């Protein structure tokens, strides 16, 4: 980790309009899937994103990648030189994107949220995505070689066949795929091998940033460990930054340098992994940690009782969104939304009473 910021997310907001039509009128309610989220990702760093279903993890990942257009806030991408690498763009292409580029450049970074058209297309190979289910994310009618090569072809990054072949073989080797298997079709592979193909496809364009959306959740434990190790190795070799989205906290703990906890579209806590897991400050983080059953029959399993269910984001609770389930909630919590503040170095929390809690865990 070089400590250099790669991506800055500022006040990111994603709203989906939910339209309900009745006979006489149409009502539109905004679902705030992501509400005022700010954080940054350093070059070569893994930021973990945890939260329960519907908390907005996937939406944040996709909004950064511009697979979904954010409705508010900024995403700034800092390139190494402060400039877009347009070496492969033709003169005609440059002409086409120039007006857009000027708008997009800001403070030494590229305003990802404002990129559009050709400029966005040229930018795409710098970012990538690994999905959850390796069975449904590979086209059964393409060979492994073609699957891995597709990002290069689609973005026009490379056009010569032997050049593409060389790159595919290099990346397949790094992902510990058997090069003999490149001519086969995905059905011949097991879940773990398929996920390696997906990782190779994501890394073939040498991106700076990859979103891993529950990328190891569908795998068996014995295979999962191998993929986690592979991702760590690739990060060390290639210096790629990961946004690692998962609902399984123990996997996130292994992968990430820093971890953010999400609850109904808002960050509740963001801290270096060590701090978040051993000295959490937010009651929700504490409850999540206590709810994980450990494979240790002597470890006390006393999950904090969270009453009720995760609230519907269409009708998010007032004040602190967690107050309806929080065992420590006071009057102030339902009236006033807590500020996002730094309680210790690099340790951010959104809770009125963060300083009063001691949730420190004993190290095993």
């Amino acid at each position, binding site marked *: 980790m070089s400590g250099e910021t790669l991506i800055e997310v500022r006040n990111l907001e994603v709203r989906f309009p939910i339209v309900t039509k009745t006979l006489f009128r149409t009502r539109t309610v905004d679902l705030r899937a992501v509400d005022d989220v700010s954080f940054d990702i350093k070059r070569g760093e893994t930021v973990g994103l945890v939260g*329960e*279903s519907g908390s907005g993890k996937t939406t944040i990942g996709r909004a950064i990648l511009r697979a979904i257009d954010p409705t508010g806030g900024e995403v700034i991408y800092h390139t190494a030189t402060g400039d877009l690498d347009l070496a492969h763009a033709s003169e005609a292409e440059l002409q086409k994107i120039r007006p857009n580029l000027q708008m997009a450049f800001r403070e030494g970074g590229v305003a990802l949220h404002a990129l559009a058209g050709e400029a966005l297309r040229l930018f795409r190979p710098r970012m990538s995505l690994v999905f959850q289910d390796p069975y449904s994310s590979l086209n059964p009618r393409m060979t492994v070689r073609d699957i891995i090569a597709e990002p290069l072809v689609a973005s026009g990054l490379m056009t010569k066949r032997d050049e593409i072949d060389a790159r595919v073989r290099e990346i397949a080797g790094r992902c510990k795929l058997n090069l003999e298997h490149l001519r086969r079709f995905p059905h011949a592979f*097991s*879940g*773990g*091998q398929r996920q390696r193909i997906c990782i190779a496809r994501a890394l073939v364009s040498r991106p700076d940033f990859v979103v891993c959306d529950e990328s190891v959740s569908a795998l*068996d*434990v*014995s*295979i*999962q*460990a*191998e993929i*986690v*190790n592979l991702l*760590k190795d690739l990060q060390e070799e290639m210096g790629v930054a990961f946004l690692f989205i998962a*609902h399984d*906290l*123990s*996997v996130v*703990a*292994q992968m990430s340098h820093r971890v953010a906890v999400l609850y109904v579209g808002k960050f509740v806590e963001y801290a270096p*992994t*060590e701090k978040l*897991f051993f000295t959490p400050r937010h009651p929700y983080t504490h*409850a*999540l*940690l*206590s*709810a*994980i*059953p*450990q*494979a*240790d*029959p*002597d*470890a006390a*399993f006393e*999950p904090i*009782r*969270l009453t009720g*269910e*995760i609230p519907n984001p269409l009708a998010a609770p007032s004040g602190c969104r967690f107050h309806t389930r929080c065992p420590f909630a006071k009057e102030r919590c339902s009236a006033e939304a807590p500020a996002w503040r730094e309680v210790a170095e690099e340790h951010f929390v959104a809770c009125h009473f963060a300083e009063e809690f001691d949730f420190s*865990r004993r*190290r*095993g």
Partner: protein
Amino acid sequence: MADEGETGRMLTVENLSIGFRTDEGRIDPVQGVSFSVDRGRTLGLVGESGSGKSISTKALMQLLPGTAILGEETRMRYRAKDGREVAVETLGRTGEEIRRLRGGEIGMIFQEPMASFSPVYTIGNQMMEAIRLHRGMRRREAREFAIEMLDKVGISNPRGRVDQYAHEMSGGMRQRAMIALTLSAGPQLLIADEPTTALDVTIQAQVLELMRGLQDDLGMGMIFITHDLGVIAQIADEVAVMYLGTIVERGPTREVIRNPQHPYTIGLLEAIPSLDTLTARLSPVPGDIPSPHARPRGCPFHPRCSKAIAGVCDTRAPVETRAEEGRAVRCWLYDEAGRSAA
């Protein structure tokens, strides 16, 4: 094999083998599995995908598809509520006897409650059907009983919820309703097939606590199927670890997790990421789970095993050796008395 005569034994399965005829030839996803369940106790079945854990329990209710072939030496003895012993393997897929067993004697909870509930009937309607069938209650009585059961599994406002459809409930609530539905038929043996896998951790904790409490109240026996050793550690009294259709190790949960013997169990426990050692590198079990069409000869685990003995493990399947009380391991590294032979 199992100790008979022990009080409270409600189910004994011996030598369960299941085969399927497929287009690509015969596969044998379950081979010679034996286990037993006592009243008020929980047996955990752990294994990865394709280990045969779900299909073994489907055989108990004669729910296997028509292409399945049950092994000739398979014995499944179930002691019914009225004290009779039922030989499940001799029952057909239809008929009065198996219908009484399904639901009324042995209940089942599945992973995805949305797929188990009918989307076109209300929760209450589906519960009342089971209650009237198995408890012989009248419609009005059954409705009251359904409301009572929903209340018991911790669903707030059960009187209102009873008339809702499955899609109107959240995931955790649906799984609670599924438990209420299963229990309303009054089973004495509960088979829970990955009941918490699709749930968020905080909801999983709630459901596990609920199931433990209900088991204490009702004294049911339980078979809990999961791939998560963490969940097993919290809920099971005994555990059987399955790999490619055989039980490779079994014993009291505490003992097996504290002191695993089979190389697969050891590998599995080491592969689990822990919350206490954040920086340590994970140690995966090398290799992939073989497809059922290419089941390795000899010990099914030998291609992935670091301790495999050439000429032994790859040619002959190990038999089960018993160690201390209640523990057994199926591995050539252990001799007759279950001591390490290596």
